[in-house]
């Protein structure tokens, strides 16, 4: 979920994680008392590193979250990739290609971090392809116009940054380090998106209308990226906030991050001269925050469960790309084997 973690996966992530609770209890009790133990390191805000002793659930939570995050990055290449061949200028095209390549890179940093937890990359891809692991629901919406490329950079990457910056201080070292790289690169993504909308908003009436239409369609899904609320009826959807905060994986609650995002974005929308599609959006002097209207959580759960406009298309495209690339991987492996055999022959 671009750094957020909710919803449940259909089964344990791999065979090694199906361990019985009894096995865990004994070591959990010991850990509490030993200096340098997992709990001691967490309490002292130290990083956990790959081969350290850690509770099964910590490992499992991290694998699920990092995998979901990695999947989001590579599925996130599709909505924008859709516009590379139709970018309005060579400048925009070069920028968009660089951005989509960055998303691929972010996915790879994250798969690399997930692998340090003892899970195999191909296993994670299998789970993505078969729908057993999720990616951010935001990518199940279509990119209907060029302005959507701007709206994704501005709103979707803006929301992603809000989620990801605190992850740079995540308790798991490899995840935190990957996030530092990602965050450095995201800033370009958000600014290029804003620039696209800034240009359209000062263009012809049609261009302005296109920018407004994109903001109308992406605003609510962007707010949903922070996950379900932390309290109330809609919170009962399987969030992991409390435990993840105790483990130092997550630093702020979903609602806090959402509010920060809204407070940051409303003035930007005003600057763009765009209206955000929420009649209840108003400044609350007393709270020092923007009040906003009710979010349609049913829509989020519908899209997560597979009923978004693009769910099927995204996975189908991903699987086709993977299958179509098989010959490249096979050829590279065959070449590597042949070269290795030749070297061996030369030595012997």
């Amino acid at each position, binding site marked *: 979920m671009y750094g957020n973690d909710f919803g449940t996966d259909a089964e344990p992530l791999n065979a090694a994680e199906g361990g019985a609770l009894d096995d865990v209890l004994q070591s959990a009790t010991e850990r509490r008392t030993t200096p340098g133990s997992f709990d001691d390191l967490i309490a002292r805000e130290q990083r956990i590193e790959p081969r350290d*002793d850690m509770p099964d659930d910590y490992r499992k939570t991290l694998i699920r979250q990092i995998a979901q995050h990695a999947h989001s990055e590579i599925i996130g290449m599709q909505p924008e990739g859709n516009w590379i061949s139709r970018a309005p200028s060579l400048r925009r095209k070069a920028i968009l290609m660089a951005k989509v390549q960055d998303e691929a890179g972010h996915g790879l940093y994250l798969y690399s971090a997930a692998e340090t937890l003892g899970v195999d990359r191909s296993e994670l891809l299998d789970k993505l392809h078969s729908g057993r692991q999720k990616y951010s629901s935001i990518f199940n919406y279509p990119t209907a116009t060029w302005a959507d490329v701007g709206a994704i950079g501005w709103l979707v990457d803006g929301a992603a940054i809000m989620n990801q910056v605190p992850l740079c201080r995540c308790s798991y070292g490899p995840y935190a380090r990957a996030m530092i790289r990602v965050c450095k690169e995201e800033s370009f993504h958000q600014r290029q998106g804003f620039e696209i909308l800034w240009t359209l908003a000062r263009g012809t009436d049609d261009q302005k209308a296109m920018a407004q239409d994109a903001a109308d369609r992406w605003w609510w899904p962007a707010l949903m990226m922070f996950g379900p609320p932390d309290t109330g009826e809609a919170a009962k959807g399987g969030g992991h906030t409390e435990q993840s905060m105790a483990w130092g994986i997550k630093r702020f609650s979903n609602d806090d991050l959402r509010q920060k995002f809204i407070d940051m974005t409303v003035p930007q929308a005003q600057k763009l001269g765009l209206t955000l599609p929420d009649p209840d959006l108003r400044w609350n002097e007393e709270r020092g925050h923007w009040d906003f209207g009710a979010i349609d959580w049913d829509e989020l759960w519908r899209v997560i469960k597979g009923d978004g406009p693009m769910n099927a298309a995204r996975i189908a495209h991903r699987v086709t790309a993977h299958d179509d690339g098989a010959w490249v991987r096979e050829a590279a*492996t065959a*070449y*590597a084997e042949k070269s290795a055999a030749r070297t061996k022959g030369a030595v012997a």
Partner: protein
Amino acid sequence: MSEGALYEVFVRPKRGLSHVHVGSLHAPDATMALRNARDLYTRRQEGVSVWVVAADDITASSPDEKDSFFDPAADKVYRHPTFYDVPEDVEYL
């Protein structure tokens, strides 16, 4: 494995600094690993030199024996300059 072996990647950010571990990737051989590392970890001129090392070739100390492994250094405080009592008015010491 269809994606090839795991390689750990080290980048020298600029002259005068050591190579630093930046992450890992999969590749069918070391030459491809090096090219992939260039594309993945130095898209914004983050390095002037890259090493790739097959993860299987790395021998690492184990966190389980961290205490006993590093213990011999723990009780030798006389290896640090602050261990020594010297008069305060001696210069360049």
